[in-house]
């Protein structure tokens, strides 16, 4: 009798496994009348501060395209997954979006490590990937392939702008604190490359590399304070900077150092979160500001976004996700097809109008000519939190 049990148990085990697999096997490929977009932003954990707003911009673009009749007679449909700031999880989700959902394109990513992982899946599967936020220079240099394109800025552009600010504030002894992953390392390299050009008298005296996702910066703060540097160059973004600023303030940190960062902490997301705790002597960057419209197109975009988000003070990341969708739409229109090879060719050299002005995708590097606003963060009467003042647009270097 025992033998019968054992064989039947094994049989049931195999049966259950087969059934579970069968239940999940139905492929929901893109239908004939739709173009399916796979989107990967972090919508949980520490990255959600940027991923959530990015999804708003993505949805706004899709709504506008569909309201105008779609592309080539097809509607845009979104399949979104949580990239979790985790390259392994993002790669698995990207693969699932392609093989199960049958998406025509991948958009998004936030952390550079996640961008590299999604790009590798796009390369394997022959699907277009437009990196709307990841900035590691590797994506468009050593890891470049025909299917990857970037609408975000990159670490070399940012490093160059930061070196110009080092010159402006007359920084001599620099402390370099970056997160220990692709973006942090590449931004550190970008700054080091640009310093001899813009601020040859400045020297990096210490390099610190906290982990991506770190929340305790006390050990790094004391090392910086003990190193005697006058300027800090950094890429701490989102909650990393929020925690860093709150922990550093009691030491009088920001009274003794000029803090220059490429972590977009001038954005609404971070500035509003820190509000009264936002420190002095910070120079930062942002792609977009709700309180500054350089073009009429931006004014209209911001009004639509404000309506969708139900707040006048809108976030910065939506414009990046919005531009990514609009670039893909233009490429499909130009190619007259969703075929990845044809869209890839169409993307090379393509120029579109965006809320921030003309955006051109370089045919060789697959990098868009995306500049950023840079400036010091100041208290201004009538504004709910610190704002950038003066605002200077820094175009990408030639």
């Amino acid at each position, binding site marked *: *009798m025992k*033998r*019968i*049990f*054992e*064989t*039947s*148990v*094994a*049989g*049931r*085990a*195999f049966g*259950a*496994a*087969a059934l*579970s*697999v069968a*239940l*999940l*096997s*139905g*492929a929901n490929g893109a239908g004939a009348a739709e173009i399916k977009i796979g989107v990967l932003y972090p*919508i*949980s954990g520490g990255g959600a501060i940027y991923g959530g707003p990015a999804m708003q911009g993505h949805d706004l673009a899709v709504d506008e395209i569909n309201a105008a009749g779609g592309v080539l007679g097809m509607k845009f449909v979104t399949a979104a*997954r*949580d990239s*979790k700031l*985790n*390259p*392994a*999880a993002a*790669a*698995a*989700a990207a*693969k*699932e979006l*392609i*093989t*199960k959902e049958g998406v025509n394109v991948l958009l998004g990513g936030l952390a*550079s*490590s996640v961008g*590299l*992982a999604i790009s*590798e*899946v796009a390369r*394997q599967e022959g699907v277009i990937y437009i990196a709307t936020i990841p900035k*590691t220079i590797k994506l468009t240099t050593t*890891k470049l392939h025909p299917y990857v394109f970037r609408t975000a800025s990159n670490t070399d552009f940012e490093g160059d702008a930061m070196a110009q600010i080092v010159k402006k504030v007359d920084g001599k002894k620099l402390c370099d604190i970056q997160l*220990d*992953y*692709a973006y942090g*390392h590449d931004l550190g390299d970008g700054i080091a490359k640009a310093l001899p050009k813009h601020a040859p008298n400045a020297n990096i005296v210490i390099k610190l590399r906290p*982990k*991506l996702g770190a929340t305790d910066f006390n050990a790094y703060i004391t090392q910086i304070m003990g190193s005697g540097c006058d300027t800090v160059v950094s890429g701490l973004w989102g909650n990393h900077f929020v925690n860093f600023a709150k922990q550093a303030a009691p030491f009088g940190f920001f009274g003794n150092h000029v803090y220059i960062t490429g972590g977009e902490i001038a954005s609404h997301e971070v500035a509003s979160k820190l509000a009264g705790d936002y420190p002095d002597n910070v120079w930062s960057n942002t792609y977009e500001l709700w309180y500054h419209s350089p073009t009429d197109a931006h004014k209209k975009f911001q009004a639509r976004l404000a309506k969708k988000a139900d707040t006048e003070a809108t976030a910065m990341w939506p414009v990046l996700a919005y531009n990514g969708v609009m670039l893909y739409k233009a490429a499909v229109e130009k190619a007259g097809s969703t075929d990845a090879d044809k869209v890839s060719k169409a993307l090379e050299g393509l120029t579109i109008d965006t809320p921030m002005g003309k955006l051109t995708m370089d045919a060789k590097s697959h990098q868009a000519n995306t500049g950023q606003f840079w400036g010091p963060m100041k208290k201004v009467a009538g504004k709910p939190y610190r704002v950038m003042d003066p605002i200077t647009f820094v175009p990408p270097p030639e």
Partner: protein
Amino acid sequence: MQGKYKATFWLSVVLVALLLLVPALGSKYLVDLTTEIMIYALFALSLNVLIGYSGNISFGHAAYFAIGGYACAIFLTTYEWPLIISMPAAIVLAGLAAAFVGYFCIRLTDIYFSMLTLAFGMLVWAVAFKWRGVTGGDDGFVGVAVPEFIGDRYAFFYFTLTVVALSTGLLWLICHSAFGRTLVAVRENRMRASFVGVDTRRLRLTAFVVAGTFAGIAGSLFAMYNRGVYVESAFWTESGQVLIMTLLGGLYSFFGPALGAAVLYTLQVGINQYTEYWPVVLGTILLIIIMFLPNGLVGLAQKISAQFSRRT
């Protein structure tokens, strides 16, 4: 061959035959999912040698999975070695690492053994995280140069099926040999086993090496399948996940952990498509296993079968 072994053998043949038919269903997704499940099944089976057969709970088993993965990726890509050398070398390296760690761990028992495996596991993670020039650090080792003959998803599926089937067969032989039987005796009563002349330390070390080696095989398959290895593969959460797979399937059954891997991984993939709250589901599953299913799904099936046969 004894009757029950004959039945297991034929059921395994049927399962392999069914798996061979998966690509014919025409779903790339199903092929990918099955490949992933087979890899995790082998990973869970390897852990069960240590937990189910020798009674040693490891919290750091992901270390050997990661070593196998990183080593295979580095040999194939950085050194451009052929697969026939890269994969065996990676497996041997995982086995050697297990021998080194096991040498220290088997000197301890119970919670102390478990905590030491966790410590070594996190050491491997720290090396992978900080040795950026070799492993890629937090970005992972992306772009593994997989040989062309298994570059296609279908070819890789058959390759994985072959490797996993052979490895499972080998593990089955090991677990059902005199060595495996003696391991069970050590698990049941270590002192009594040593009184009858069993060198329990040597036996536990061998089990540690066997488990680490087969985890290395699973890791090298994982690296090639993903064309990348990430530092999370060595993190304690990965060790926790494979432990839950083993518990879910059933510790005291040879095939139980494979079933646990299939069910847990399928649930994880399915639930992640609809919500970001997978950790909540995972916690609930663990709660249910601990409170109601101490012998896992296989134990539950056995209980139901027993009740059913009593009625008939």
